[in-house]
């Protein structure tokens, strides 16, 4: 049992790292396509070895620690960022049970009853990676970047949480697997909560510090933001953590709104074939959402800081609250509480 879980842990970590690796490639390719360019095409077929080349380049770079920095925090910072972004993948249900040699293998590392709460909790911890790294580098630009990143994450977490609560109310469970299972077939939450989906999507963009909300690292104002002083693989960890975050948030969006591993017409399959097709469906959704993330990045210019806060506090949170209230009233009516 433990060995089975260990193998699953390693596989899922490898998969999320691999997905993040190739989303860096997809990012570069997508950027090129949107700008009428070709993009990287010198490393193997479709430049599939490009992430490897990037990684080797990152490792070869000089790994300097500037003077007047808090050395230990400086080293721990990227580690925390990476750790928090990887750990969320433990509670995500990747598909229905597989049957291998007669024993059932759940495609989920930890089947929490409160998976969604765990994810929200880890999301709030992920601020620390950025904040500690920036604080330790003793650089005003880094600190500005980190302050922006943390305040932005805290403000958008609220609206995100409120939308998550609406989904929890509809499902009646905090478990991610229960949420997925309630959207069986084509019964996806996006059809019941379109506004919630849009708000959650915007919040996910802000949580992953991606454009148009990438104020934490806006080059024109803050040089590189919180990772200004970093080099070599420590910088790689920060950049990489962002891509892992993107992968995980795409997974969460598809779990909460797009039915996770459900796909229309799934009842005509069963057993291992169903499990594998479900995995395929889930990954297709994730890749599509990641592509939309990139599409948005190469379309919309960065928000101004006051616009960002205005959008978060004065628009998204009221919308999320009203959405929550209306959902609550409808649930109350359908459950017959007023009769």
């Amino acid at each position, binding site marked *: 049992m433990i060995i089975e879980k260990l193998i699953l842990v390693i596989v899922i970590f490898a998969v999320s790292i691999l997905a993040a690796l190739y989303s860096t490639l997809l990012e570069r390719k997508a950027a090129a396509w*949107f*700008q*009428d360019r*070709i993009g990287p*095409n010198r490393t193997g077929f479709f430049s599939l070895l490009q992430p490897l080349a990037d990684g080797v380049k990152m490792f070869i770079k000089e790994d300097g620690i500037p003077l007047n920095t808090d050395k230990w925090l400086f080293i721990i910072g990227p580690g925390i960022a990476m750790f928090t972004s990887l750990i969320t993948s433990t509670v995500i249900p990747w598909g229905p049970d597989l049957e291998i040699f007669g024993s059932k293998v759940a495609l989920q590392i930890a089947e929490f009853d409160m998976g969604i709460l765990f994810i929200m909790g880890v999301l709030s911890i992920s601020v620390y990676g950025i904040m500690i790294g920036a604080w330790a580098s003793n650089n005003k630009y880094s600190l500005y970047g980190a302050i922006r990143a943390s305040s932005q994450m805290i403000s958008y977490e609220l609206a995100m949480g409120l939308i998550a609560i609406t989904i929890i109310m509809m499902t009646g469970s905090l478990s991610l697997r229960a949420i997925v299972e309630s959207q069986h077939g084509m019964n996806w939450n996006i059809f019941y909560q379109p506004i919630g989906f849009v708000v959650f999507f915007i919040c996910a963009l802000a949580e992953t510090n991606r454009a148009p909300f990438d104020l934490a690292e806006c080059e024109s104002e803050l040089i590189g933001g919180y990772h200004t002083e970093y080099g070599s693989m420590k910088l790689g960890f920060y950049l990489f953590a962002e891509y892992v975050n993107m992968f995980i948030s795409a997974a969460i969006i598809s779990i909460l709104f797009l039915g996770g591993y459900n796909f229309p017409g799934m009842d005509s399959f069963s057993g291992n074939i169903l499990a594998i097709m479900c995995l395929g469906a889930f990954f297709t959704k994730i890749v599509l959402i990641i592509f939309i993330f990139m599409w*948005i990045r*190469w*379309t*919309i210019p960065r928000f101004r800081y006051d616009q960002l806060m205005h959008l978060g506090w004065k628009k998204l949170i009221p919308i999320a609250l009203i959405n929550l209230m209306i959902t609550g009233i409808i649930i109350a009516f359908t459950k017959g509480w007023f009769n």
Partner: protein
Amino acid sequence: MQSLSNRSKVVSNKPMTFLERMYLPVIFGGMWITFKHLFKKNVTLQYPEEQKVFAPVYRGQHVLKRDEQGRENCTACGLCAVACPAEAITMIAGERKKGDEDKYREEKYAEVYEINMLRCIFCGLCEEACPKEAIFLTDRIVPSQYEREDFIMGKDTLVEDMNNRIDISLRQMTGKRGEK
């Protein structure tokens, strides 16, 4: 005042409408524009494999021409060096020895002829100054080097190879020379 191009817009500071404040319609419009760019033709030129065709007036690396019998045209008169605004050209003249008649066309020739490609501004004045049609600028790009000294090109690179002659007929057709 009426604008000449008819394209100017009057800037107004009126508050945004509800749709504009929602951002979303504009964002979807923008995303549609970028989506259309996915299917547009790439503008990239894959450099080492594909190369741009140069215009006939392009002025690149110099060549010192030989005539039909393979004799060097240059007589080391120094007019190109005088014409050169960047002072990139230097030369040392020498007298033709007996038996070298098939190497040099006239009695005087350039023993050393050097162009500093880092000084050169590729204006083409040397070409215009030359009375013997000996120096031309070609459509070749000066190759990059690791050392500054390697950019000082001597006769070994500048004088054309008889087996691999460089076509300068397009250069002869352009500019003032074409009018003659």
